């Protein structure tokens, strides 16, 4: 059976390569990442043992890196499912090699992000209190529910379109056939199955968009439901969602570019994909700027004293460097790069994406800390410097992300093979049909 499949050389063989060819560098990378993660675990256990005192958080600044990273990671997770759902829904044909990666980002990063509130707990041993004595009235539990829902939905949404590919892997044979057989759910690519699958994906597509939007809206509610200056703002819901998609696209492009490079997928991930996504990123950058501008304009114009304290602190205080860094990273750099075709090359886009990811992280920092550092009641200004523990846990989070991706790419194709095939086989015709349906009918048909 094995030999049979090996003989049939697929056109998309390049996409299977990461699964079947395991280089030394892979083991080295996994080992290195596991080491980092192990170390992070030790640091975390130390934190549990001694208490949150090992972090840099303090009395007015009661939230620090963990919450920043929570918002950041969950924001990144919007890369995926949301983008892929929108692209699928809008039948953008160039989506085909992108969606899988986007969805994987979502699943992994969401898992990391979702853990952050638990890391942030002073009593992680009592986390079950949320189940025995929780209050759904608390925005924190809205989060728990919506992140659970989003995680479930996005895993399902990652899984269902992967079934045909899993079946392919199963049919190719190999070491883990039983595993692929278990996961393929008896897919044989019959018409009925195809109909069932596409119907399910269609329903999911529609469902996942509001869930994804709800997740980041709800995360913004954590802040905006309080009365704190700089947080208590109605714009926060959409602002966070825009920011999330923004950072998500950037993260997606970073991942795409690195996979393109290391697995030689230049044939699949072409410049045009990056150009399209780059345009999207540019739009999001402008949108982000618009939201940021509105947010601060209303604050400055209203000039409520405590609001002004926070805003001035951001503009000129200890955190000014982060604020202006955020503006540069999120607006100036991407706009300059993406607005000119000359710069809109793959390295250019990579720079823009990295700058956006950094910028969005700074934005989260700028939202969480300055508001807390400026208590209203004539008290002293707070100061927050993250400790070694927090940095380690941040790096550990990134390591889990990379490891997750590596491991995923070891088991599953990182680009949806059947969708590419489908694209080759059917979509040219279909698109032609579709496009002609958009076009005005020939003049003579009007009577």
């Amino acid at each position, binding site marked *: 059976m094995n030999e049979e499949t090996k003989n049939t050389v697929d056109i998309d063989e390049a996409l299977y390569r990461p699964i079947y060819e395991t280089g030394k560098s892979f083991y080295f990378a996994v080992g290195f990442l596991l080491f980092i993660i192990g170390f992070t675990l030790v640091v975390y256990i130390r934190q549990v043992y001694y208490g949150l005192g090992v972090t840099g958080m303090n009395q007015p600044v009661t939230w620090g890196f963990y919450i920043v990273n929570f918002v950041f990671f969950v924001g990144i997770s919007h890369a995926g499912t949301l983008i892929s759902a929108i692209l699928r829904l809008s039948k953008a044909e160039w989506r085909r090699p992108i969606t899988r990666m986007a969805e994987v980002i979502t699943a992994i990063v969401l898992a990391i992000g979702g853990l952050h509130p638990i890391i942030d707990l002073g009593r992680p041993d009592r986390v079950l209190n949320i189940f025995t004595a929780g*209050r*759904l009235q608390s925005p924190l539990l809205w989060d728990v529910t919506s992140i659970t829902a989003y995680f479930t939905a996005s895993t399902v949404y990652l899984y269902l379109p992967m079934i045909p590919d899993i079946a392919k892997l199963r049919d190719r044979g190999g070491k883990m056939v039983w595993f692929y057989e278990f996961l393929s759910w008896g897919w044989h690519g019959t018409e009925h199955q195809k109909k069932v699958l596409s119907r399910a994906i269609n329903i999911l597509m529609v469902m996942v968009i509001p869930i994804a939007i709800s997740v980041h809206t709800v995360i913004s509610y954590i802040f905006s439901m309080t009365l704190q200056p700089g947080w208590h703002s109605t714009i926060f819901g959409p602002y966070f969602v825009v920011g999330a998609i923004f950072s998500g696209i950037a993260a997606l492009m970073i991942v795409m570019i690195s996979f393109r490079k290391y697995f030689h997928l230049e044939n699949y991930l072409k410049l045009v994909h990056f150009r399209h996504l780059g345009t999207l990123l540019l739009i999001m950058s402008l949108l982000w700027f618009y939201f940021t501008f509105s947010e601060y304009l209303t604050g400055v114009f209203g000039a409520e004293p405590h609001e002004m304290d926070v805003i001035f602190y951001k503009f000129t205080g200890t955190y000014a460097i982060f604020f202006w860094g955020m503006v540069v990273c999120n607006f100036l750099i991407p706009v300059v790069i993406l607005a000119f075709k000359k710069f809109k090359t793959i390295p250019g886009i990579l720079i823009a994406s990295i700058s956006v990811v950094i910028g969005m992280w700074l934005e989260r920092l700028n939202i969480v800390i300055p508001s807390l550092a400026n208590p209203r009641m004539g008290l002293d200004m707070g100061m927050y410097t993250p400790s070694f523990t927090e940095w380690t846990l941040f790096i550990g989070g990134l390591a889990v992300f990379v490891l997750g991706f590596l491991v995923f790419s070891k088991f599953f194709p990182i680009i949806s093979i059947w969708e590419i095939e489908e694209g080759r086989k059917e979509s040219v015709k279909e698109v032609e049909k579709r496009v002609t349906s958009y076009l005005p009918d020939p003049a003579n048909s009007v009577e």
Partner: protein
Amino acid sequence: MKTINNELRDKIIFAAQLVSISLIWLLVIGIIFWISNLIYLSVDLKDSPGISIGISLVAIPVFITLASILTYVFVGFHREKKKHLNTDSGN
């Protein structure tokens, strides 16, 4: 011997698939149970139960839908597979 083994293997895999599907439902039921417990608590403690009920009205259907989609796909696939197998054996 090989076929028997294959049969058993298929059975085990099918059982595992069934288990995974039921685990999804277990999760959903667990969440529903949890949310209703929280609603009970908020009513008991007169702690603005309206909000909890509102959230549960959104959250519970979402989870049920998700699980239903999965079940739908699973059942759909297998109904076809059985047909497929039947026709196979028929041949």
